[in-house]
């Protein structure tokens, strides 16, 4: 009834690749931000809080457009940094990664923070009193205790990355075989009157991936719950 062409397989591959890379790069950043917001008191905390959560409320198209203004050939960062270095971001898969990172970042930070705030501060203080350095106590006390948050945050971001459309289509374009992700390919098929079958087929792939992600999420959650 339908047959996937090379560009369809590539769309699936690109989607997964972008979501995985974006999640991996964001993880340390989101952890740092969540750590600062939970354990540190500093000026401008509200500003950081608003900045981090802004992508949650902004339409993804706005994010895409702002990124384009920043990173484009005539953008602020584009003109001063990227062009002299010969780096091209817009319309490559790296742009899709950046778009996904920005859009998914608040979800990840929130998941980690919720877990971090539940950590008993006295454990951290005790480790410091017993002579652990700052990083030592982070890696031996905080990371293990908010491991569930890290997993949950990663999965949320991964899932959000798979579905990212608005920002991605603006900054990564729609290049079959290079930056076309599943949602972009579906959009292409849906725009055309006689490609419903292909659109449906890719929708099914999308549903399957999402179901797998959710099952893994549940399973990990239960496993962690039992151990805790």
């Amino acid at each position, binding site marked *: 009834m339908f047959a996937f062409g090379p560009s369809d397989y590539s769309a699936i591959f690109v989607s997964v690749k972008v979501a995985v890379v974006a999640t991996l790069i964001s993880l340390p950043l989101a952890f740092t931000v969540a750590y600062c917001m939970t354990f540190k008191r500093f000026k401008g905390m509200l500003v950081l809080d608003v900045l981090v959560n802004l992508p949650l409320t902004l339409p993804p198209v706005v994010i895409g457009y702002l990124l384009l203004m920043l990173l*484009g*050939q005539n953008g602020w960062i584009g003109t001063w940094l990227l062009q002299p270095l010969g780096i091209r971001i817009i*319309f490559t898969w790296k742009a899709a990664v950046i778009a996904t990172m920005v859009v998914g970042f608040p979800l990840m930070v929130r998941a980690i923070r919720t877990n971090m705030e539940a950590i008993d501060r006295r454990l951290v203080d005790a480790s410091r009193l017993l002579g652990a350095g700052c990083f030592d106590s982070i890696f031996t006390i905080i990371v293990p205790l908010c491991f569930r948050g890290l997993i949950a945050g990663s999965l949320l971001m991964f899932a959000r990355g798979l579905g990212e459309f608005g920002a991605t289509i603006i900054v990564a374009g*729609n290049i079959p075989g290079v930056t076309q992700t599943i949602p972009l390919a579906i959009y292409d098929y*849906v*725009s055309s009157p*006689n490609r419903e079958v292909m659109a449906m087929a890719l929708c099914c792939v999308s549903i399957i991936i999402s179901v797998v992600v959710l099952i893994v999420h549940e399973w990990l959650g239960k496993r962690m719950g039992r151990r805790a």
Partner: protein
Amino acid sequence: MIVKNVFRILPVVLAVFGLLTMPVQAEEINLFAAASMRDAVDALCDAFAEINPDATFQKNYAASGLLAKQIENGAPADMYISANTKWMDYLQGKKMVNAASIAVIAYNELVFVGMPELKVSELKDIVTLERIAIGSPMSVPAGQYAMEALKKSGIDQQLHKRLVMARDVRECLMYAEMGEVEGAFVYMTDAKQMAKNTRVLFVVPQELYSRVTYPAALTASGSAKIQAASFLDYLRTPAAQKIFALFGFTDK
């Protein structure tokens, strides 16, 4: 307490009644037109409304394929203007347009735009470029014509993975204007009307692709509206053709 509530609800109730009793705009024409026609059709609508003051327009511009799909799925269109015959034939096959009303209203040409300093003067030169914008051939006629030309000249395989699929022809031009792509396939009319930073590097030879033809037709609901039918007639008058020519469309 009750009095307070009444005052709170009253404006809402009045607003709802107001909406319900608003006179039904019988002469509103729902126009679905190809993105490349945007400015010309806007001007034509204004000119038509001047002669027929009771005609108002509701306009929807997008890729012709997307519009065809919307109409097929029941979007309230009275009139459809496509940038190719393919999607018009498709809707005719589905009996979504009134076959007797189909009329060609304009023609166009495919060109390649890019930054003025680019050393590109014919189709085979574009294989040296890194990124080229093209309307998604599945739904955008400009992309379909461009793909036809690329295939006929045998360079479509070489350009694989370098074609940025835009949602309509205007987006192609926007990408080129912003410098995010080296060049883009657009219509002569788009280049003439809107190109600021880019210029036409070459005109795609007509023997490489089928002629860019704009057929217009009334849908079932449009056939029942007098103003819609007279607007379609108006599009073929010399006065309307003069406006088309102003925007760079040709009538032959």
